[in-house]
């Protein structure tokens, strides 16, 4: 029996096969799916902002920012036995929900760029992605197969 674990906004979770991770309605946020296929350990983070350096929170929520969330997720996956040199990444989200307007900077694109740079810095290859455009995405991540299903109102379900 597999169970499905929901990852909230500014949240992350790690599971083993055969469990499934899900995060709902990513808009400009980015969902980062990390997988060690040898031991079938999967981690999913739902980040909102690119960098914790811009935070003015009283207490930093490390799961909210791409830089801190990814580093923490890799660490936590290693407790499950994952090895950083085996981890691969799939990413989804980073949309621009409302049409371009000079007052609206494109945070979705900045989030995606930050995620790509941080993964590159950790030498974690991105093997699939579904980012950008202008619609919301729900992500299902299967720890047994490493498959990521991206569901949107416009495009239906696609597997990456």
């Amino acid at each position, binding site marked *: 029996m597999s169970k499905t674990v929901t990852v909230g*906004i*500014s949240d992350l979770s790690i599971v083993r096969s055969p469990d499934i991770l899900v995060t*709902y309605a990513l808009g400009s946020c980015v969902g980062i799916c990390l997988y060690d296929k040898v031991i079938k350990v999967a981690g999913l983070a739902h980040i909102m*902002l690119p960098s914790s350096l811009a935070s003015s929170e009283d207490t930093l929520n490390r799961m909210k920012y791409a830089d801190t969330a990814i580093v923490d997720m890799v660490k936590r996956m290693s407790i499950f036995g994952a090895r950083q040199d085996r981890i691969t990444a799939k990413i989804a989200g980073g949309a621009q929900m409302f049409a371009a*307007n000079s007052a609206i900077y494109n945070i979705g694109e900045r989030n995606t760029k930050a995620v790509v740079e941080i993964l590159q810095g950790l030498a974690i290859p991105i093997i699939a992605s579904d980012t950008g455009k202008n619609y919301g995405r729900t992500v299902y991540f299967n720890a047994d197969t490493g498959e990521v299903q991206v569901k*949107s*109102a416009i495009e239906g379900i696609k597997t990456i």
Partner: protein
Amino acid sequence: MSIKNYDELNPMHIDVLKELGNIGSGNAATAISAMLGKEVEMTVPAVSVLDYTKAIDFLGGPENIVVGMLVRITGDIEGMIMFILQKPFARAVLKTFFGHEEIDMMALGENEASAIREIGNIMAASYVNALSQISGRMINISVPSLTVDMLGAIMSVPAIEFGAVSDQVLFIDGTFILDNQSIKSNMILIPEINSLTSLLSSLGVDI
């Protein structure tokens, strides 16, 4: 003194904000009633400090497909107004304009989109005019931008914009009801935290 954290709002502040929301959304309801030639009821606005997950659940869950509109507020008061139109509400509005029976919300034509944007524009303008008159503050609004998508993805826009400061947000939420309970829309004023002090002090409220 200024308010730096939503925890600093006392019950009197909340009451004042509720009353502002009441006057603003009352004005907006009158405007939309006149435009549609139909009675539009309005609930007493709720003012709450919520985290986004709770707000999204309150509005029907993250994957609920809704019509979302974003209007930016600039000037002496900064922030945004988010309109969340449940699909039956948007459909009822379009029916009054165009007489269509069934409209595919995922494939709105330019006319339909303009009509909905116009509703947003008129409601936002009447809301903000009321706020501006009471507070004596100058407030400008942007042209609404529109999307039809998952509620959670739409609400991620204010969540991200104010996210570097706090995971919580002050919602001044007015619900508009057309014909019956099932046809609803919500208009949510999200003032920036720095603008709250300005708004409250303009009304002679002790901070």
